[in-house]
């Protein structure tokens, strides 16, 4: 991606983290938008996303909060009800469970319970996923749990372009939007596509076309799926890689259209297999395109253990290009 463009006008390379920051900076030009969360101000965000924004926009717009997820997510919901467009940052999805009551019982339900009178235009960002040796309590992938909840939109930007442009679309959505940023992506570097100025939040994307198998994934697993597809192409297996992008609502049409062409599906999901988003996608494929299937749907998920700290164990517990390759071979063999 970057090499192709380097020869022409050579736009500066950027990172996923910087793309997110750029999106926030752009959003903050709207007076109603403000960012709040633990350490987002003086510390610059615990993943460095909001570094420098406090200096640029001041403490009214970039607000450090006490260590109470329920309180500051609730405050965000209240602010959204009051006409603001808050962006709430939760350090990791593991801690978001402390705010689950606010998200599920307030943010997701108020529109329904008010008879359509109260929409909650809050955007909640958080980190998810493993791979950085942060131990079980910082490494789980629980976005599938949120994708279970009606009334919210759940996004998983996997590319620089999505990181750069999803926030604006999320803020434009009158309903609560949760954005899950995979922790291993923050340092991912590349060049933004200057032709993309906005993204929609409804459709999955085909990141790599192929004809033998559909590898369906999202977020932090996308790069692993792409790596697996590279390995497979060496064996003459042409894998199509789908990036779901929106985990709720799911873009069934793109998935089914792809599986309808390749007749085989492998779902890669860093969450635990049981009751996962991968399970949901597999079920939908069976429901909708059963008679297109030439092999059982395969799933590559994390081992059903608390994610280990030790590097080798952590790597063994997570989906890896090699395990994706194995699953694809099983599907096409």
């Amino acid at each position: 991606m970057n090499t192709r463009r380097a020869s022409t006008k050579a736009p500066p390379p950027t990172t996923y983290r910087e793309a997110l920051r750029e999106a926030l900076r752009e959003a903050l030009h709207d007076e109603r938008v403000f960012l709040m969360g633990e350490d987002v101000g003086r510390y610059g965000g615990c993943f460095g996303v909001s570094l420098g924004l406090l200096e640029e926009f001041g403490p009214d717009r970039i607000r450090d909060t006490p260590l109470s997820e329920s309180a500051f997510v609730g405050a965000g919901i209240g602010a959204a009800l009051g006409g603001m467009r808050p962006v709430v940052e939760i350090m990791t999805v593991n801690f978001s469970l402390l705010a689950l009551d606010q998200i599920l019982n307030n943010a997701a339900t108020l529109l329904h319970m008010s008879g359509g009178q109260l929409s909650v235009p809050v955007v909640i960002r958080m980190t998810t996923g493993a791979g950085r040796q942060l131990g079980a309590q910082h490494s789980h992938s629980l976005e599938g749990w949120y994708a279970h909840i009606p009334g919210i939109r759940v996004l998983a930007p996997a590319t620089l372009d999505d990181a750069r442009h999803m926030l604006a679309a999320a803020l434009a959505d009158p309903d609560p939007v949760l954005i899950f940023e995979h922790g291993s992506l923050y340092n991912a570097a590349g060049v933004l596509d200057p032709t993309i100025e906005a993204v929609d939040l409804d459709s999955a994307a085909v990141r790599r076309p192929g004809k033998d198998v559909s590898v369906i994934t999202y977020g932090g697993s996308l790069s692993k799926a792409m790596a697996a597809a590279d390995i497979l192409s060496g064996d003459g297996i042409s894998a199509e890689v789908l990036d779901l992008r929106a985990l709720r609502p799911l873009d069934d049409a793109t998935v089914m259209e792809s599986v309808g062409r390749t007749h085989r599906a492998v779902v890669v999901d860093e969450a635990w297999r049981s009751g996962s988003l991968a399970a949901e996608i597999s079920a939908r494929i069976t429901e909708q395109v059963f008679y297109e299937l030439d092999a059982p749907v395969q799933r590559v998920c994390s081992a059903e253990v608390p994610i280990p700290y030790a590097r080798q164990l952590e790597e063994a517990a997570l989906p890896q290009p090699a395990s994706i390759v194995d699953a694809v071979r099983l599907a096409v063999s």
Partner: protein
Amino acid sequence: MTEFTMPSLGADMDEGTLVEWLVNPGDAVSKGDVVAVVETAKSTIEVECFDSGTVSALLVAPGTKVPVGTPMAVIGPATEPTAHTPAPQPTEPSPGFYPAPVRAVTRAGDAVSTPLVRHLAQKKDIDLSTMHGSGKGGQITRADVEKAASPPRHRVPASPLARRLARSLDVDLEGVRGTGQNGTVRADDVRAAAGKRAHRTQRAHRTQGPRPPAPEPPAMPPSGAPPVRPSVKSRPDTLTTGAPTTRSAISALMTRANRDIPHYYLSTTIDLAAATAWMLNRNANGPVGERLVPAALLLKSAALAARQVPQLNGYWKDGAFVPADGVRLGIAVSLRGGGLAAPALANADTMSLPELMKALRDLVSRARRGRLRASEIADPTLTVTNLGDQGVETVFGVIYPPQVALVGLGCVVERPVAVEGMLTVHPTVTATLSADHRASDGATGARFLAALDRLLQGPEEL
């Protein structure tokens, strides 16, 4: 709680074979629902239920022959749970599905089994002495026999896509070598098989000229097609192989009729000019679907005549005539593969002609498919035999006991007729009456034929 018993589907029936249940335990049934198919010596009949409620147990297994009056199912009250009374709990273990009525276990050679199982084995032509039972103490169970009768069907492992392709390409999965996991047939295998076949067919055409290619194995039936009910499939067999029993049943019944019933016979020729003219005019002006045939007019007239002369419409029972409460005109239908059935056209006297046409068509086609209802076969009050379509001019029939008369109709033929001193040619029919002299005299019979004649002269009144 009521019992559903083997019905008597004719005066001469004393036992019947349950062919299939059309209900399961727990099903709600209401009076008049068809619940079972019963094979009698004469034909296969759909039997209706005379009670409403919930089927709580089926007591007789399909394939079992039982005497008339044998309880075949238990029908409990309709289950309507109320707020106060919880559903009654059975105080004793409720009878299961097809409990063997006799629990006596006997030895047949080395094999131990119950009579019901032995009966089933006999029916399926299985030698129990060669079998090993899976039941208690090596007892041969019903499941063992069924398994032996139909070994588990081999299912070719194939992916959904491969199955779909196989259907559309008309490839039999049985002959396709699967290259997937555990030999699973995949789409490519089906395509390869289809390609090979096309190639072979082509070559056969080229090298062998007009000789037809080897017949392909039959394609799998599409799974979307409604399942073929085995009973339906076996029906033609029942009729052809059942012909000897049908013959013997007719033989017994007709011998009895001719021996016990003192018949008298009357015959008259009826001028059908008015009826035919009216019918042709009506057919010319009406829609094709509602066109009438002469038989409809004849049957309607016979039914009305039976109403006007009730002494011929009923039964001879216990030495006395019992008039029937309505006209259920028995229609003698010759069956494919031989034999006769005479199902009743209920309320034939009150039906309009189009209704009668429709009912007649339905009745005849169902009689020939062996799908008559018990109520239709049970109680005709007066039977008509119409051999007109065979070109016969006059038929004198034998009364179908316990009825007391039989109307015979020949074909409609043009005959010279004297009308007001002039000779002319009119369509006519010869109507006959065979009647039971114990129940009526010739004068009564004559009144019937006269009524028939009169009715046919005013077809617009029919």
